[in-house]
């Protein structure tokens, strides 16, 4: 019990999460609007929100093992807000591509999504993530009963698709996607008991 009492109030932590997730976006779009985000602000906003989504997704996957390790059950209650921000960043990532990269050329947008495997993979990840975000509402969660957990286990699929999407999108500098792949595999490794239960 002593450890738990050390944990700051959850609402306060959530305030920091909101600030930490939203402030960089305000800064990003403000600088991009002023044309002070490098020579090509479009690339910057697309990459920033993409990497941001991946960071938040991996952070949300870090919480359960971390809660166990630190014996801080309250960390679990942060998974939803961080997961939802991962979804929010991923939506912005796609909207940036549609608004600023292809600039509302819907034909080109559709072509790119279906013709480019790495974009298809990213889009599938976003669709699954959308289902997870929608079903994160308490009422729906209760209504779904046991199938909720089953559905939300697909987070691991989303993570897999997301790191593949990143790896596949780069020209030759594979180091950072590889780091993400290793981190993700490590997070899966921490859950090895869960997976062996699934498959036994």
């Amino acid at each position, binding site marked *: 019990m002593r450890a738990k009492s050390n944990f700051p109030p959850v609402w306060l932590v959530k305030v920091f999460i909101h600030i930490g997730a939203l402030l960089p976006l305000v800064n990003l779009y403000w600088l991009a609007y002023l044309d002070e985000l490098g020579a090509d602000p479009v690339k910057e906003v697309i990459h920033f929100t993409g990497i941001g989504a991946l960071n938040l997704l991996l952070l949300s996957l870090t919480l359960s093992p971390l809660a166990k390790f630190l014996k801080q059950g309250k960390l679990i209650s942060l998974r939803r807000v961080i997961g939802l921000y991962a979804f929010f960043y991923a939506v912005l990532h796609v909207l940036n591509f549609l608004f600023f990269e292809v600039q509302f050329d819907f034909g*080109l947008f559709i072509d790119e999504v279906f013709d480019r495997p790495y974009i298809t993979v990213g889009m599938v990840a976003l669709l699954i993530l959308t289902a997870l975000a929608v079903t994160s509402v308490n009422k729906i969660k209760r209504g779904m009963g046991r199938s909720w957990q089953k559905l939300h286990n697909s987070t691991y699929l989303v993570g897999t698709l997301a790191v593949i999407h990143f790896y596949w999108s780069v020209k030759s500098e594979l180091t950072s996607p590889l780091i993400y792949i290793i981190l993700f595999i490590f997070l899966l490794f921490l859950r090895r008991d869960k997976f062996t239960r699934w498959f036994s």
Partner: protein
Amino acid sequence: MLIKTPAKSTLTENHVTDESVYSGRRSLLKKMGFLGAGTLLSTATTSSNAEGFNFFSSDKESVFKRSAIKYSPASNAAKSEILTPETKVISHNNFYEFGTKKSDPINNAQAFKVNPWALKISGEVNKPFTLDYDDLFNKYAIEERIYRLRCVETWSMVIPWLGFSLSEIIKQADPTSKAKYVAFETLDDPKQMPGQRSRRLGGGIDYPYVEGLRIDEAMNPLTFMSVGLYGKTLPPQNGAPIRLVVPWKYGFKSIKSIVGIKLVEKMPPTTWNILAAKEYGFYANVNPEVDHPRWSQASERRITSGGLFSRNRTATLPFNGYGEEVAHLYKNMDLRKYF
């Protein structure tokens, strides 16, 4: 006779620190061991912050010094297109020798030494020769050429280059009948180029960077050896002191900081083709009909001034709009096969 008695605080020319001493004061201090670890770290090669805005800082001595060049200006007709602002041309670069991020070259290349330089013209020629740094600016009449630059990554710029046609160099060397191709090579100097020291920083490329053209492509009047842009010598991040500019081909053909031009009989290897042959061909002509396997090449975003909301997507033209000048070079070729 008027005798002027200067105030004690007045500076005379004797007091002026010689510019070379002034601009070298950092390295002087470093040599003397006066700077702490923190200041030394600040020049580390992977400064990921600041995103290429270093040239706005007051720390002017760390910026590579460019000098003005005398040139004959481009015709007014060529000036009809909106130029990409100079600050963007020199801060958004693919030059993996200095790091793979677009802002890496401007951050990591400012100490690059271009003088002395030696550009060797050799191979299947009767009169091989070498150009030194001064030759690059004095041997050929320098003219301005305003070209569109189309990157294979689907962004593009419009840049006022200074330089001369590659054909002038080749003619001077007097090629033999065996000269079918021209092979180019970038400087190989891992001490100066962090990307050549580390596979991680250099994007996994085997250096030195090499490129090539067919001899008729190389002799085309559009094919340009650039020694400057926007009225001044090239900054290192754009390929100082001399680089190739082939405006109808994707940007990666326009090899930077060249030390070797060799006329050869067989098609020479080229860096991006070695790295991913299915994605980057030897010819690499700009072609909206032939997509990169992972993205469409049908249109591009023109980088000009204006932020996130500037509508800058335009259709990509065959041969980047230079078809009139170069399409005949490929008239019996299947450009889908020879992409």
